[in-house]
């Protein structure tokens, strides 16, 4: 990364692409559920990475930075397709507190879902809920990173994740139990 930043030699960008393209493509497939759209997204994401690489400041991991570009881009794609509406109030209206024990229990339950069932469940919950779950559990983004990505407060993001987990678990029970 540093070598590419310092030299702008495409050879180093090739290496970055080889290292990260597969993961980025997998994330695009998980979000977009469409091979052609994912291939286009992959190209656009790496173009964004290329054009913005000078802005990367090493405050986070390079992969985290790339994944946040990936999720942002996929959200934009879905939004343009008209399938996603991030209603402002949905992330800001919650004032109730999150019970830590409940959160741990829900997380355990969520991570126990079998992978094939998870695929079906994620496709049947609203896309914004799917997006936050993928950001957290697949991309490994921290709450702070999600806050800056989604431009939301920490409590709003935490509540968004909680709601998404609840919907996912409920849907799983509906479909598979």
């Amino acid at each position, binding site marked *: 990364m540093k070598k590419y930043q310092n030299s702008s030699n495409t050879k180093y960008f090739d290496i970055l692409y080889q290292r990260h393209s597969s993961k980025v493509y997998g994330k695009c497939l998980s979000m977009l559920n469409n091979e052609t759209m994912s291939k286009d997204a*992959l190209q656009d994401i*790496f173009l964004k990475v290329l054009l913005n690489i000078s802005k990367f400041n090493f405050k986070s991991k390079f992969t985290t930075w790339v994944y946040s570009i990936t999720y942002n881009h996929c959200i934009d794609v879905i939004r343009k397709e008209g399938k996603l509406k991030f209603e402002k109030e949905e992330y800001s209206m919650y004032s109730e507190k999150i019970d830590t024990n409940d959160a741990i229990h829900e997380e355990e339950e969520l991570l126990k879902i079998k992978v094939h069932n*998870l695929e079906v469940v*994620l496709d049947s919950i609203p896309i914004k809920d799917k997006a936050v779950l993928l950001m957290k559990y697949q991309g490994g983004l921290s709450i702070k990173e999600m806050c800056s990505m989604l431009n939301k407060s920490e409590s709003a993001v935490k509540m968004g994740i909680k709601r998404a987990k609840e919907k996912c678990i409920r849907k799983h029970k509906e479909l598979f139990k």
Partner: protein
Amino acid sequence: MRNKNNFRQLENLKIKKHGEAPKKVLDNIEQNLVFFKTIGQTIELFTDKFIKTFIKMNG
């Protein structure tokens, strides 16, 4: 978080289903890079010429 949780397994499953990330995308990116560089150089050249002409005209 577990190292290989079900969400990450799902990502691998999707890759298995749809195949690896295309390698040729990189060529397009490099073509884009060349395009942007060319545009950048053209703008630079034009700005340079414009400034020189401007200075000439205004003494």
